C-alpha cells in the first residue's frame, strides 16, 4: 500500500495564510466603503485576527472559509470588477520561493512552467494543466476543490487576471494571449477586455489560455538566473500540497483504467469514504474520469486534428463503436457533429 508523500488539501483543510487572499479581500471591501464585519460574518474569521500583530502570518484559513468570504464580497461590493481587482496584484506577490521563481524567470516559457506546477501553493481552488500543440502552449483550468459554477467563474476571473497582469508586469509589454471559456459571454464583457484583452471566445468546451510558442522567449525585466535557480531549488524541496480533486485527477491521468476501489486503496481509505469525500467536493469518480477523457479529446481535436481511429486508439478503446458511444455520452453529439459545431468556425473565434 503506497501512501502519498504529498499532503492533500480538502475543502476544510486549513492551508491558506490569512495574510494572503483574505487580507486582500478585506482591503478591497474597505476601499469600496463596505464594512469588513459584513463580509467576515459567518466565515469563522475575525477582524481582530487580521489586525493582530504577527498573528496574521501564522493563522491559516480553509478553502471553504475563503469561498464564503468571496460569496459575501460578491454580494456586498457593487460593480463587476471585484474579481478582477483581486487578481490584479496577486502575482508575483510575496509568497516566498514561488514568487521569487516567477519574478526572476528568464522568459515566459519558464514562468508558465513554474505557474502550472506550483500555483496550487496559493490557489487551491482552480487547478491548471499544461499542454502543448504544434504552435502554442495551453493552460487548461479546472475546478480543484468543488465549487459552484458561479464561484468557479469568479475564481477563474481572479486567477486569469492574476496571471495576465503578472505577465504584463514582468515583460513590460502586452503579450497576445488567447482565452476560451466554457461560460457564455458575460454582460460585463468590458472587464474581460480591460484585464485579459480582446482575444476571447465564450461557449467553448474547456477553459483554456493559449500562448503562441514564438512569444515564449520574451525576456523579462527582473530576470536573474541565480535567484531563480535558488528559488527553484527551494520549491523542489518543499512538498507541494495538492487540492483533493487535482490529486484524484492526476492519479487517474497516470493510470486511466484505475477503478474507484484501487484509487481508494492507494489513498488509504475505504471506497465508501472516498465516495463520501468526493461528494463533499461536489463530484463523483466517474465525472472526473469522463472529464479527463473529454479534455484530451477536446485538445486533440482542436490542435492535432486526429482521426476518430487515432483518437479511439489514444484513449484506449478497443473498437470504434465503443468510442462513438462514449463520445456521444461526453458531448451529446457524434464526432462529426462535434467537428462541424466547434471546429469549422475557428478562424472567426480567434479574430474577436
Amino acid at each position, binding site marked *: 500500500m503506497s501512501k502519498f508523500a504529498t499532503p492533500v488539501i480538502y475543502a476544510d483543510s486549513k492551508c491558506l495564510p490569512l495574510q494572503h487572499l483574505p487580507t486582500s479581500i478585506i482591503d478591497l471591501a474597505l476601499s469600496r466603503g463596505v464594512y469588513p464585519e459584513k463580509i467576515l460574518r459567518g466565515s469563522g474569521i475575525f477582524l481582530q485576527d487580521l489586525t493582530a500583530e504577527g498573528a496574521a502570518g501564522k493563522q491559516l484559513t480553509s478553502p471553504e472559509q475563503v469561498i464564503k468570504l468571496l460569496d459575501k464580497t460578491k454580494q456586498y461590493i457593487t*460593480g463587476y*470588477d471585484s474579481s478582477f*481587482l483581486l487578481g490584479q*496584484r496577486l502575482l508575483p506577490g510575496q509568497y516566498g520561493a514561488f514568487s521569487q521563481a516567477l519574478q526572476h524567470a528568464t522568459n515566459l516559457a519558464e514562468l508558465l512552467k513554474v505557474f502550472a506546477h506550483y500555483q496550487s501553493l496559493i490557489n487551491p481552488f482552480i487547478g491548471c494543466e499544461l499542454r502543448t500543440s504544434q504552435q502554442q502552449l495551453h493552460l487548461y483550468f479546472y475546478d480543484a476543490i468543488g465549487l459552484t459554477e458561479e464561484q468557479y467563474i469568479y475564481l477563474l476571473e481572479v486567477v486569469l487576471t492574476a496571471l495576465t497582469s503578472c505577465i504584463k508586469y514582468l515583460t513590460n509589454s502586452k503579450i497576445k494571449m488567447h482565452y476560451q471559456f466554457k461560460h457564455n459571454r458575460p454582460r460585463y464583457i*468590458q472587464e474581460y*477586455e*480591460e*484585464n485579459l484583452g*480582446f482575444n476571447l471566445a465564450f461557449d467553448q468546451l474547456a477553459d483554456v489560455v493559449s500562448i503562441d510558442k514564438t512569444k515564449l522567449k520574451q525576456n523579462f525585466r527582473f530576470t536573474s538566473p541565480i535567484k531563480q535557480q535558488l528559488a527553484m531549488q527551494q520549491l523542489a524541496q518543499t512538498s507541494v500540497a495538492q487540492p483533493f480533486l487535482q490529486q484524484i485527477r492526476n492519479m487517474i491521468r497516470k493510470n486511466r483504467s484505475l477503478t474507484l476501489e484501487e484509487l481508494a486503496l492507494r489513498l488509504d481509505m475505504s471506497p465508501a469514504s472516498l465516495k463520501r469525500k468526493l461528494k463533499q467536493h461536489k463530484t463523483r469518480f466517474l465525472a472526473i474520469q469522463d472529464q479527463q477523457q473529454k479534455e484530451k479529446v477536446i485538445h486533440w481535436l482542436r490542435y492535432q486534428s486526429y482521426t476518430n481511429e487515432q483518437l479511439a486508439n489514444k484513449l484506449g478503446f478497443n473498437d470504434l463503436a465503443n468510442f462513438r458511444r462514449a463520445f456521444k455520452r461526453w458531448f451529446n453529439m457524434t464526432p462529426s457533429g462535434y467537428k462541424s459545431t466547434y471546429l469549422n468556425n475557428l478562424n472567426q473565434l480567434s479574430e*474577436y
Partner: protein
Amino acid sequence: MDFLFLKRHYKIVAAIFITVGALLAAVFTQGQLKSGQTTDWLDVLGEGGIFVMTAVWLFFLLASRPAGKVTYLLSIGLTCFLCSSLLDLTDEFVSYPSKEFWLYWIESLPALVGMVLMTWGLYQWHHEQLKLHQQLSRREAFYREHSQIDYITQLYSADYMRDHLSQLIAEQQNYALAMLDIRNFAEFNRRYSTQDGDRLLREVADLIVMNLRTADLACRYAGDRFIIVMPNTELAEAQEVCEQIQQAVKSLAFKPNGNNKAVYHKIATAVVLSEPAQQFEQVIRQVNLALEK
C-alpha cells in the same frame, strides 16, 4: 444602511417626539379608556398601519435629506399627518366627554394642513431637482439609476452607458463615442498603492467632466478606461474635446500619498462615429480596437 443625515436633524426629531408625546398626554388625560369589547380590531390594524408607515416615511425622509427648506416643509407636513393618524388610532381605545370635544374636532385638521405643506414641499423639491440636474449634467443623462453609479469615480458605469446608447438609437440620434485610457495605470498601481490609483481615477474623472460640453455624458467603462458619449457631434469636434482632455490630464501634477514629487500621466484616446441604425455594441468594439492600436 448608513443613515447619513439623521444625526443632523436632532432638533426636528426632538420636536416630533415632543408633539407626539404632548398629543398622547392630552388624549389620555382628557379621555376615558373604553372597555375592550367595543374595540374594532380591523380599524386598529388599518389605522395603526397608517401611523407606523407614516413614521417610517418620516424616518427615511430625515435619514436621506440634508437640512433645508424642502426638508422642513416635508417633515412638518408628514408630522401633521402623523398626528392625525395617531388621533385616529387612539379613538379606538379612548372616548371623550362629548361629541364636540376639541380632540374630536381637530382630528382631521392636521392631516389637511400636512397635505398642503407636503404639496408645497414637493413643488419646491421639483425646483431643487431641476437645479441638481444642472449640477449633474455631463454625469447623468435622462434617467437616474443609483445602483449603476461607480463607487470610485462617482460616474455612471458601463451598464448605464449602454442604456443611454440604446436610448439615443431609439431616438435615431447619431453620436460620437470616445474611449480614454490612462497609460501605464497598472504600473502606477503596483508602484504606489491602490488607494493612490483610486484617487487618480477620481481626479481624472473630474478632469474629463470639466472638459465636456453640457450635452456630453462621461461614464467609467472598466478599470482605467472611460467612455464619452457625444450626441450629434462631428469627428473633428469630438477629437478636439479629447485633445483638450489630454492636455488637462497632462498638466495634472498628481502627488501620491506621502510623496512630494508629482507623477504626471498621459491618456490615450480614440473616437468613432456611429452610423445610422448601427448596433451600439459594434461601435463600442470599434472604439475599443481603435484604442488598442
